[in-house]
């Protein structure tokens, strides 16, 4: 075979372009990864609106009970089941504290009080109770999901990274855990331990972390075999460095997405537990216990159940939409799913 045909001389090679040209293309510079995510996130209107809703609800949950003149627990037996009365709007003929043409506030001898959301059957201000309840519901959900993340990420990371027999055993444990209906685990736990916020958080987290650990494990398995991890290993990276520098940053997006979808889930489960009578002890209130209380007199005083239910719905919807938007921004390939 003729050698000249195939061997490139240096001159020929140079024809294809200098091997050491210095490229500079400034149009790409700038945007960091976070920056790009934020841009994508806020260009989605549904996400922006849901983020605003969550912000408003969180602010109300923090400040409304502080600013309100009424306490969430004080019982006023003389002013029970008052209808909604909102200053300003009452002049338009709505929310003016009347029921069937009778001013209930006058009738109960509290003509100067304004209960925006009315009062319940013990005369407690529902406005204050709804926002205190939101506060507690959010607190429980965040604590429970934080526990999910802590346990789930560690568990999934260990199972995925070290693999082998450890992984095999850990996956069997998860299968057993998911084999038992989680409602039963929660109810047993709540019956055994004394009721309160920590118990409910634990009950929610005890099965909630499984989903997180599965997602993290799948991500770790994918990333572990990637060429950039192999490259890092050929440079002598210790396992901890690979986990912290390579695997964790590349899993963070999925962790955040799962977190965002877990929060409304936890809020819902807490409400559900409260609804079947396993909620926070009275006189504390969560959105779930409020709905449970209001539901009993829903036919007579529908606002007592509708208002906390509305806050719950908006909160859950917003978190789900935000989760969707985050997923689109962080992991564009998932958009079609």
């Amino acid at each position: 075979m003729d050698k000249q045909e195939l061997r490139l001389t240096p001159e020929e090679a140079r024809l294809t372009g200098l091997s050491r040209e210095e490229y500079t293309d400034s149009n790409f510079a700038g945007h960091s990864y976070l920056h790009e995510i934020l841009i994508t996130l806020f260009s989605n209107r549904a996400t922006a609106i849901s983020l605003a809703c969550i912000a408003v609800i969180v602010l109300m949950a923090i400040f409304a009970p502080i600013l309100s003149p009424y306490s969430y627990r004080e019982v006023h037996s003389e002013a029970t089941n008052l209808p909604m009365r909102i200053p300003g709007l009452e002049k338009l003929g709505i929310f003016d504290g009347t029921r069937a043409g009778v001013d209930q506030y006058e009738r109960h001898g509290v003509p100067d009080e304004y209960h925006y959301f009315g009062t319940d059957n013990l005369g407690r201000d529902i406005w204050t109770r709804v926002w205190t309840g939101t506060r507690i519901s959010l607190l429980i959900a965040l604590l429970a999901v934080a526990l999910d993340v802590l346990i789930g990420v560690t568990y999934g990371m260990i199972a995925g990274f070290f693999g082998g027999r450890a992984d095999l055993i850990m996956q069997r444990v998860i299968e057993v855990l998911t084999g038992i209906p989680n409602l039963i685990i929660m109810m047993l736990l709540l019956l055994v331990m004394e009721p309160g916020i920590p118990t409910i958080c634990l009950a929610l987290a005890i099965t909630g972390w499984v989903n997180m650990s599965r997602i993290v494990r799948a991500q770790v398995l994918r990333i572990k075999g990637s060429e950039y991890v192999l490259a890092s290993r050929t440079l002598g990276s210790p396992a901890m460095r690979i986990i912290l520098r390579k695997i964790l940053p590349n899993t963070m997006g999925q962790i955040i997405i799962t977190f965002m979808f877990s929060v409304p889930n936890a809020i819902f489960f807490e409400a559900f537990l409260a609804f079947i009578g396993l909620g926070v002890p009275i006189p504390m209130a969560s959105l779930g216990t409020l709905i449970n209380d209001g539901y009993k007199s829903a036919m007579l005083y529908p606002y007592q159940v509708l208002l906390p239910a509305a806050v719950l719905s908006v909160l859950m919807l917003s978190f789900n939409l935000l989760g969707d938007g985050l997923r689109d921004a962080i992991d564009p390939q998932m958009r079609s799913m």
Partner: protein
Amino acid sequence: MNAQTERAERAGQPLLEVEGLRQHFRMSRHYTVKAVDDVSFTIHRGEIFGLVGESGSGKSTTGRSIIRLYTPTAGRIRFCGQDVSGRLTAQQTLLLRTRMQMIFQDPIASLNPREKVIDIIAEGIDIHHMYESRAQRRDMVLAMLRKVGLAPEHADRYPHQLSGGQRQRVGIARALIMKPDLIIADEAISALDVSIQAQVVNLLKQIQQETGCAILFIAHDLSMVRYISDTIGVLHLGHLVELGTTQDVFEHAVHPYTRALLSAIPRPNPLLERDRPIESYDCRAAGVDYTKGTLHHLSDTHLLLATDEERDRWTRGA
């Protein structure tokens, strides 16, 4: 370690000796993939060794066993005079992780998307604490960028903000900053455009000349291998079937598999290309069993895996 390395060098020992390397993957109790089966070759200091073979022939596995991403099933690997095939001492690990480096095939997948170019390139010197100050670290990275033909501005970019050729240069810089004696380039150009391939191959060649490192150049594109390599090994089904200088392999190929590979290279002359005969080779149909063959010296540098009968038949035909 340095004293030992130098002694090995003085004794004229090869940089890397691979003897009877086997890498088997046990898939189940009844089935084992023999990805690499009894492969032996040596690489001398400053040599560019081309390893060719079709996809699935065990090229990557060979490279990964040598750099100990896998634990070899059997065989001996000596690097800088040290046996690095068994259980590694801390000192041997250090030798392997600094003096031997790898460049990967996929320029996208081989860079962590969450790290800036500067941190990717500095990874090796970070792990082995090879600088005194942040400023010195940056200087070392910038020097590397210049060496591989990138601009200082690229240091603060993320991988997805670079082109394919630029990314591969970052991969080369990451390996080069360790001043390795051996670089394993696993299909380092296969994923690039043809025009960029020539640039990167020229860059590797230039680097080899400047630093005197050896390169194990794994590829399936024979024309590039011919251009860059001093020695070529032909791998098929995990066996090294033919080994020789570039001239041996390209002009006096004996093994039917090598000849089939060579006949598949397109020629730039359309008149020749029109009548180019393509030799086909199917070892099972030809009744060739690699495990029965032994290595025959056809010349000082030219080795062939065959039984005596096969050698006689093939050399007669050539």
